[in-house]
C-alpha cells in the first residue's frame, strides 16, 4: 500500500538546503582554524581564508536561523516539534529498540510518518536539542568571539575568551556529530535515497 503526501513545504526545503551547505562550510573552516598549522597541512583552507569564510557563513546562518524560527511560528510547522511529557521516555526507548533491533527483524515502524506526525520521538528530541539548544549556544558564543570587547569582557573577565572558545568549539563538534547521525538516519527510509528525495521534492513516500 503506497503512501505519498506533501510534507516539506518549499520554505523548509530551501532553508534546509542553505542550512546544510552553511553548516558544512562552517565545520570545514572551523576545523581548519582549530588545527591550523604553519604549512596548512591538514585542511585546505588557509587560516586567513578560513576566518573570512567562517565569519560570512556564520552571519548567513544566523539570518537563516531567525528565518527558521519565525517560519516555524508563522506556519505552525512548530507543532511537529512539540514534545508531550507523557510516556516520552518509553516512546524514546521504543524507537531506539526499533533502530537497534526491531528493524532487522522486519518489525513495523512504531511511529509511522503521517501528516500529523512528521517526526518519531528520537527525531523530535534531537531536532529540538539541536535547533533550540545547540544552535543558539553556538551562535551566541560565536558572536561573543567576534566582538570580545563588548560581550566577553563584561561578563566573564579576562580569560572569558578561552571559556567561550572552548564552549563554541565543543558545541560545534556536538552539532557535527548530530549531523552525521542525522544524515545516517536519513538513509533509513524505504530505500536509502527515499528521505533525501523527499527533502528535495517535498513528498513523503512509503510502500
Amino acid at each position, binding site marked *: 500500500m503506497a503512501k505519498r503526501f506533501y510534507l516539506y513545504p518549499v520554505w523548509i526545503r530551501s532553508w534546509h538546503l542553505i542550512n546544510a551547505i552553511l553548516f558544512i562550510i562552517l565545520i570545514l573552516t572551523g576545523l581548519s*582554524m*582549530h*588545527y*591550523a*598549522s*604553519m604549512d*596548512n597541512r591538514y585542511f585546505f583552507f*588557509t*587560516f*586567513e581564508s578560513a*576566518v*573570512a569564510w567562517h*565569519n560570512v557563513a556564520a552571519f548567513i546562518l544566523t539570518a537563516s536561523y531567525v528565518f527558521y524560527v519565525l517560519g516555524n511560528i508563522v506556519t505552525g510547522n512548530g507543532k511537529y516539534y512539540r514534545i508531550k511529557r507523557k510516556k516520552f*521516555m518509553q516512546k524514546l526507548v521504543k524507537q531506539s529498540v526499533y*533502530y537497534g533491533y526491531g*528493524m*532487522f527483524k*522486519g518489525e513495523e515502524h512504531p511511529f509511522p510518518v503521517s501528516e500529523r506526525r512528521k517526526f518519531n520521538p528520537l527525531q523530535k528530541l534531537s531536532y529540538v536539542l539541536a535547533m533550540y539548544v545547540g544552535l543558539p549556544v553556538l551562535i551566541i558564543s560565536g558572536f561573543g568571539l*567576534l566582538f*570580545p*570587547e563588548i560581550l566577553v569582557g563584561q561578563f*566573564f*573577565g*579576562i*580569560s*572569558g*575568551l*578561552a*571559556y*567561550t*572558545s*572552548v564552549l563554541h*568549539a*565543543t558545541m560545534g*563538534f556536538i552539532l557535527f*556529530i548530530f549531523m*552525521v*547521525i542525522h544524515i*545516517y538516519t536519513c538513509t533509513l527510509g524505504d530505500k536509502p535515497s527515499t528521505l533525501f528525495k523527499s527533502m528535495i521534492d517535498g513528498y513523503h513516500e512509503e510502500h
Partner: protein
Amino acid sequence: MKVIILGIVVTLLAFLGITGPDTAPVMQDPEGAEMLKGAENSIYYEDNETCFKCHAQDFYTLEDAESGLSQKRVMCQNYIVDRDEYYQSNHWSFACTDCHSWEFSNFPHPTAERLQDHFSCLDCHGYDEAYAQYHFEEIEEEYNASTHAEIEGFSCWDCHNPHSYEINIRTSTNLKETILYDNNICLECHGNYSNFRLLSDIDEVDVVVSHEWLPNQVAHFAGVRCIECHTSINDSILVAHHILPKEQAVRNCTECHSSDSRLMATLYKFEAKEQRKRGFLNGVIVNNSYVIGATRNYFLNVASVVIFAGLMLVLMIHVFFRIKKK
C-alpha cells in the same frame, strides 16, 4: 536521561579543568624587588624639587632677581616630567643631576649644556655582572641592526623614557596591562605625529590603516605586542629588539595561530615552560586569552577523535546488519 546529561556536562567540565581566570605567574626580580620605590624613599627628594618646581607642571614662574619682576610662563609639554611616574620608574633613586649636568640648576640653562650628549644605557649597565640577566650588550647589538638605528638622533631613550620607563614584562602580574604599556611605547611616535615628525620627514602613516588586513584589530592590539610581529625571535634575551623593515613583519596568521605559535618564543617566553598546563597545548596563553589554533585542549581533541571513531564504528555495525537482513 537527566543523569546522562549531567554526566556529560560534568565530564566536559572536568576535561576543561578551567574554573576561571587566574593571574599569570609572577617573575620575581632578583634584585631591587625588596627596595621600596616612591618619592618618600628617595634621598634626593628635596634636591629634585628644585627642578620639579618648574618641570612638574605646564607652567613655571620666570623671575628676574635684579628687577624683582616675575611672570608665569607656559612649560612646553615635552619638558614636563611626571613626579609620580618618575619615582616609580627604574631610575627613581636618581637625582636629576646624576644624569643632567649641575649647570641645569641655573636658569636659563646654559646652551652649551643643553647641547651635551646624554649618557647611554651601556655607559652604566654595560658589562656589569649585576645586570647580566638583561643582556644589555646583546640588546644594543640588536638595536644597532634595527630600522630605528638608521634614524638620525634616535636612541634607546626614545623608547625608554628616561623619567618613566619601568621594566614590565619581566615582573608582570597582568599581561594585558603589560601589552598596553609596551604598545604605548611604539604608539608614542607611531600614533602621535608630532613626536614622529621630530625624527622623520615622511608623511603621517596611520597604523590602523596599515594593519587593516588584520581582522579584529582591537582584540589583536590588546592581545599581542607590536614587537611580536615586528622583530626577529631571539632566544637569549627576553625582549627582542631587532625591529625589521616592514616588509619582513609577520603577516602569516599561522605564525601565531598554530601549535608551534611564535607567541611561545616571544610574549609568553618566560612562562613557556609550563606548556600543556591544564591540558591546553601552549597552556600559558589561556591565562590571558585564547589564540585559535595555538591553544588547543589536548583532552578535548583526543575525546573528539575517540567519540567520532566510536560513532563511525556503531554506524558501520548498523550498516552491516542492514545488508545482512536484505
